[in-house]
C-alpha cells in the first residue's frame, strides 16, 4: 500500500497532499475532545499493523485496518492515518515524506467512504449490522488497491494491469480484514456499546 518516493509525478503528489490536508482539516474539526484517546489508539494500531508483513505473493502483505478505522472514527481516520504514516516515513523510511499525502489518501479515503457507505447498514440491528461490518473491512481494502492503481496511472503504467495485480494481491487481506472488522465490531457492541453510540445511534 505504501508507494515509494520518486515514483509518482508531481501533479499526483500535489493532488494527494491537497486532498490529505483537506481531509485532515475536516477530521480535526469533527474530532472532539472525547474522541482523542480513541483516535490515538487506532492510530497506534494502524502504525503497528502496517509494519507486520506476511510474505504472501510477490510483495508480502500487511494489514491496513482502514475499514475498522473508518467504522470507528469516521473523518477522524484521516488525521489518525496521516500521523501513523508520517512516523513510519520518518522512523523507517517507509513510504516517504513527499508521498505522505498520496499514501494518506490511498488509505484514508476508503475509510471515510466506507464510513458513509455502511453507516445505514450498521445502524440496523441484527444480521444487517454484521454484514455491514464485514463489508466495511472488505471494501476499504478493495478501494485502497484501486486507488494505488489510480495513483500509478500518472507514471504511465496501464491502469487495468496494475489494478488487477493490486486487487488480486490483496484478496487475502480483504477477507482477513473483513473478519477482523466484524469481530471487533461485534465485540465492541457487546462490551462497550457506548463507543459505537455516537456514530451509530
Amino acid at each position, binding site marked *: 500500500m505504501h*508507494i515509494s518516493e520518486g515514483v509518482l509525478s508531481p501533479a499526483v503528489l500535489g493532488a494527494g497532499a491537497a486532498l490529505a490536508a483537506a481531509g485532515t482539516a475536516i477530521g480535526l474539526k469533527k474530532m472532539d475532545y*472525547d474522541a482523542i*484517546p480513541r483516535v490515538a489508539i487506532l492510530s497506534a494500531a494502524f502504525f*503497528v*499493523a502496517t509494519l507486520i508483513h506476511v510474505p504472501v505473493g*510477490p510483495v*508480502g502483505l500487511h494489514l491496513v485496518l482502514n475499514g475498522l478505522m473508518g467504522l470507528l472514527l469516521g473523518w477522524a481516520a484521516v488525521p489518525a492515518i496521516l500521523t501513523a504514516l508520517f512516523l513510519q516515513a520518518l522512523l523507517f523510511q517507509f513510504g516517504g515524506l513527499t508521498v505522505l499525502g498520496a499514501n494518506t489518501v490511498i488509505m484514508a479515503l476508503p475509510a471515510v467512504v466506507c464510513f458513509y457507505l455502511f453507516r445505514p447498514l450498521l445502524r440496523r440491528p441484527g444480521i444487517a449490522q454484521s454484514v455491514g461490518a464485514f463489508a466495511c473491512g472488505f471494501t476499504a481494502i478493495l478501494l485502497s488497491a484501486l486507488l*494505488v492503481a489510480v495513483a*500509478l496511472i500518472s507514471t504511465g503504467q496501464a491502469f487495468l494491469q496494475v489494478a488487477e495485480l493490486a486487487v488480486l494481491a490483496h484478496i487475502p487481506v480483504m477477507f482477513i480484514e473483513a473478519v477482523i472488522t466484524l469481530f471487533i465490531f461485534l*465485540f465492541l457492541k457487546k462490551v462497550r456499546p457506548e463507543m459505537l453510540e455516537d456514530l451509530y445511534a
Partner: protein
Amino acid sequence: MRKQTSPTIAGDSFLHRPLSAAGARLRMRDDEEILFDSGRRHPWKICYPWLIPILLCLCFLTPASPALAHRVLVFAYAEGDTIHTESKFVGSGAVQQGQVQILDQKTGKVFLTGTTDDQGKFSFKIPPEAAAQRLDLLVVVEASMGHRGEWQMKAESYLPTAETAAGAAPIAPGSAAAVAPAPEASTTPTPPVPPEIRAPAVDRQMLEDAMNKALERQLAPIKEMLTELTIHRTSLTDIIGGIGYIMGIFGLLAYFQSRKKKDS
C-alpha cells in the same frame, strides 16, 4: 388494563411477556445513559483494554516476522567491465521482473533499461559513455505497485582509479576508460622504453588481474554482509517508540483542546 398502567413495575413483568420486553428496554436505556454520562465526565477513563493485548501481540510478533518487506533494496558492484545488480524486497526475497534503469546521476539521462530475473539479478556492460566521462551512475529498480529502490554508484567504484590506470596496468581489459588513458600514461613518463623492460610490466598486469579476481571472490561475502547491514530492520524499540510518539502527539492535541474548552 394493567398492561398500560404499570409498565415501570419491573417486578411483575415476568407475568406479562410483552411488558418484560418493554421493561428490559427501559432498563437498558438507563444503563446506557449512565455509562455514557460517566464516559463524558472522565474522558481519560475510556481506555480500551481490548486493544492493549492486540497491540502487544502485534508488537511481539513483529521482530520475528520480516518487516519492511515493502522497501526495495538495490545493490550493485562492478566486476571487470560488467556491473551486477541485485534487488530484493527487504525480508521477503528477490524483486522478480522488476524494471531496472541505469541513469546518469547528474542529468538523469537513461543509459539503458532492463528487467531483473527470478533471483532479482540484472547485469550489464558499463556504458562506454559513462566510463569515458567518469559519470556517477544511479541504478533505479521499480517493482510492482509503486515500490522503488535506488543505488548510487560512484565512478571510482566501477572504474579503476586514476593512479592504477597511470601505473600502466589496465585492470579491466574490456573497460574503455582503462584502456584509453593507459597508453598515454605509460608512454609519457618513460618514452624510450626498451622491450626488455616492458616484459615485467605485463607480468605485473597479469598479477594484478589475478589478484583482482581473487579479491572479488573473497570480498563477495563481505559485500553481501554490508548490504545486510545497510538495511535498517524494524526493532521492537522502534515500534514502541512510534506508539509513544503517537500517544504524545494526540496527548498534545488533547491538551490544547482542553485549554480551548476552558477558555470558551
